[in-house]
């Protein structure tokens, strides 16, 4: 079979065998949650509850506060005990609502639809917006915004991102296997919103189970096609996935909609299904708890706001002294130092690595081996961009395309000199963004 893929990229060991065949396990409702009001890209939600209020599961506690923002809901029923600044997984502080559960898990009334035939595109978008749905692949961009391309953009395809190219993570895979029909319904919701009838699913060939399931389920669905992709990182980067599936390049500085595409993660699709058919706001998600440092690696359905510490305890705690704990995947995830950090909408994984498997690296001078040049999916010259980042030469970095970097980390991965290339590049991007905003 012909395997589609994008040029360049890397082949890290996928380490998915730890959890790939484990069905999603539902974690008990936590007794206490810390729900940050900023879990998404864009403006933080405005808090609409006060200390002392009683809230039900699914009740709005943070209201979307701008065009790019998202609603936040209570994930358990109970009493708001505190509104404070809390540490989040990225290291940033966010205002957060702390809810102490009453143990009843009492839900708000939910409006369910048996089918969405009578709903308009605007109705559906409203449901998704009210449910606080954001991209669950990691970036957490508000989904309703992504589903509202400007009128002058002609959208042709909906692409479902189920590449899950990060090593260790298997939550999307489990969703695909266990909730196949529901995700297909979700895709149809998105297609109706976008007013299109072409949907493409790309699945890497290390997830053949999911590919076969979709193949079978989609026999009578001519509008949705599933393709097998070569396992390669970063297949799940939007631009790389689009290149792999329809062989079009998103223009430099542009968005997928510029080539007529809207990309949605498969988990996000499921959240949309739950919002429309079950009336459920986004208050829980599937995540992968894995790594050789955790006793019972598993795929978990968790309520948002539960702390990493509680998850680790639920999974049988550490096997031995942990050396590194990562929120997300090993390629783009964030190393954690405080386990009181809560799970948010974009938390796809929690990985624990034992002390003796964790390495630190001394940077040595670049030997110009060009392995980063050959790995970069954006065809940049990472060694050069990193040099500019190191020396604060922002203009030079910008001229050489630093803003096109998707921060996948392939360059740092391959570097024999162990230079933190992507880190210097992110620094440059950040500085340039700050400067652009000032103008």
């Amino acid at each position, binding site marked *: 079979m012909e395997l589609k893929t994008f040029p360049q990229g890397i082949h*890290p*060991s996928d380490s998915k065998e730890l959890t790939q065949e484990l069905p999603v396990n539902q974690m008990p409702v936590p007794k206490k949650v810390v729900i940050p009001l900023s879990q998404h890209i864009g403006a933080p939600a405005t808090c609409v509850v006060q200390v002392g209020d009683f809230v039900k599961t699914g009740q709005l506690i943070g209201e979307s506060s701008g065009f790019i923002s998202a609603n936040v809901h209570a994930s358990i029923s109970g009493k708001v005990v505190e509104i404070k600044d809390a540490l989040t997984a990225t290291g940033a502080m966010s205002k957060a609502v702390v809810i102490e559960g009453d143990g009843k898990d009492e839900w708000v009334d939910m409006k369910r639809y048996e089918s969405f035939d009578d709903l308009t595109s605007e109705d559906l978008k409203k449901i998704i917006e009210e449910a606080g749905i954001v991209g669950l692949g990691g970036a957490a961009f508000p989904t309703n915004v992504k589903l509202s391309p400007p009128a002058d953009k002609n959208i042709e395809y909906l692409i479902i991102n189920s590449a899950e190219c990060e*090593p260790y993570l298997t939550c999307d895979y489990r969703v695909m296997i266990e909730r196949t029909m529901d995700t297909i319904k979700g895709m149809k919701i998105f297609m109706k919103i976008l007013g299109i009838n072409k949907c493409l699913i790309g699945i890497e060939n290390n997830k053949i189970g999911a590919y076969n399931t979709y193949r079978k389920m989609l026999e009578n669905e001519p509008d949705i096609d599933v393709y097998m992709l070569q396992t390669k990182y970063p297949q799940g980067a939007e*631009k790389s996935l689009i*290149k792999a599936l329809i062989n079009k*390049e*998103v*223009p*430099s*500085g*542009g968005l997928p909609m510029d080539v007529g595409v809207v990309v949605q993660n498969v988990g996000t699709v499921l959240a949309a299904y739950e919002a429309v058919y079950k009336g459920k706001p986004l208050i829980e998600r599937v995540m992968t708890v894995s790594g050789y440092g955790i006793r019972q690696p598993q795929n978990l359905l968790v309520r948002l706001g539960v702390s990493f*510490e509680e998850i680790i305890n639920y999974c049988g705690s550490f096997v031995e*002294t*942990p*050396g*590194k*704990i*990562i929120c997300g995947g*090993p*390629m*783009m*995830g*964030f*190393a*954690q*130092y405080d*386990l009181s950090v809560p799970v948010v909408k974009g938390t796809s994984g929690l*990985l624990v*690595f034992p*002390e003796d498997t*964790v*390495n*630190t*690296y001394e940077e*040595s*001078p*670049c*030997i*110009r*081996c*060009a392995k980063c*040049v050959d790995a970069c*999916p*954006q*065809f*940049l*010259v990472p*060694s050069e961009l990193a040099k500019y980042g190191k020396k604060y030469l922002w203009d030079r970095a910008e001229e*050489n395309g630093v803003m*096109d970097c998707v921060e996948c980390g392939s360059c*740092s*991965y*391959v*570097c*024999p*000199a*162990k230079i*933190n290339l*992507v*880190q210097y590049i992110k620094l440059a991007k950040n500085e340039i963004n700050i400067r652009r905003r000032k103008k």
Partner: protein
Amino acid sequence: MENKKLLVTPAPHARTSETVTSVMMDVVVALIPAILASVYFFGIKALVVIVTCIVFSVASEYVCQRLMKRPITISDYSAVVTGILLAFCLPPTIPWYLAAVGAIFAIVIGKMVFGGLGYNLFNPALVGRAFLLASWPVYMTSWSGPEKFLEDKWMSLSDATTKASALSVFKETLMAVKKGAPIDSLKEVYNNFSLSDLFLGNVPGSLGETSVLFLLLGAFYLWFYKKHITWHIPVTYIGTVGLLAWLFGGPAFMQGNVLFHVTAGGLILGAFFMATDMVTSPITKKGRIIFGIGAGIIVFVIRIFGGYPEGVCYSILLMNAATPLIDRYTKPRRFGEVKA
């Protein structure tokens, strides 16, 4: 759950096991077949030159780093690579102290004054060789060997069969032809050196440049197995020399002996192990093609029109100098970049 020992580093948290040291070690491993071949064909003398070059390369790097108060990085094997490569372009009969001077010059002037590994503009081994050739031209062009394995001259440190290298015979004949000797004498040169001897390395010449077979063994290891080098420089470099030699290198147009020009001299060594030196060659594929073609033209011009019989060393050094410029003008097309 207080844990003060959690490590926090930026993403990615997965890295390849490859390090600068492992890359350099791979190059050393790739050079081992040719080292063995050089000792087999040229005797113990060859081993003395190689060991001298390695020892003085590593020692001068150490001394430099001590004096410059920089971290000591001699364990990264890069100086070992320089030592071996320098030895490979010296004649077996060179006195050990000249080999030592070459190694010191290669490391100190070729590498350390630029800031050490990664910052040098020129291939250090070739800097050392160029210096020796300019300073002691007689020693540098007195070829010897091959000797008979384990016989007297093989075992001796000083005694050797002096002979002219294939390319110097070619050059002399070429000069003679220009002065009026019959053009067919060029063909005789081709006939005097059998291709199988040239391929195996059973000919007089510098230590490591003669055995095409054993050089290729190592080169393929780096190219296909370790993937440290790409085809771009070796193929275009050798291809250019071969093409020009075929067109203009013979007694008449399109009658040059391609295999003679490719296998005699240091082209294979240079193309696979020196021109592909990561630090001093272009980082882009387009750039490497330009580098290879440019070096190929220079080699041919020197061999046919220049004063030296061999031009590999200077061709690479000259293209090294052009590398920053090549890199600047061969930036890859960025993903999604619309060409104006």
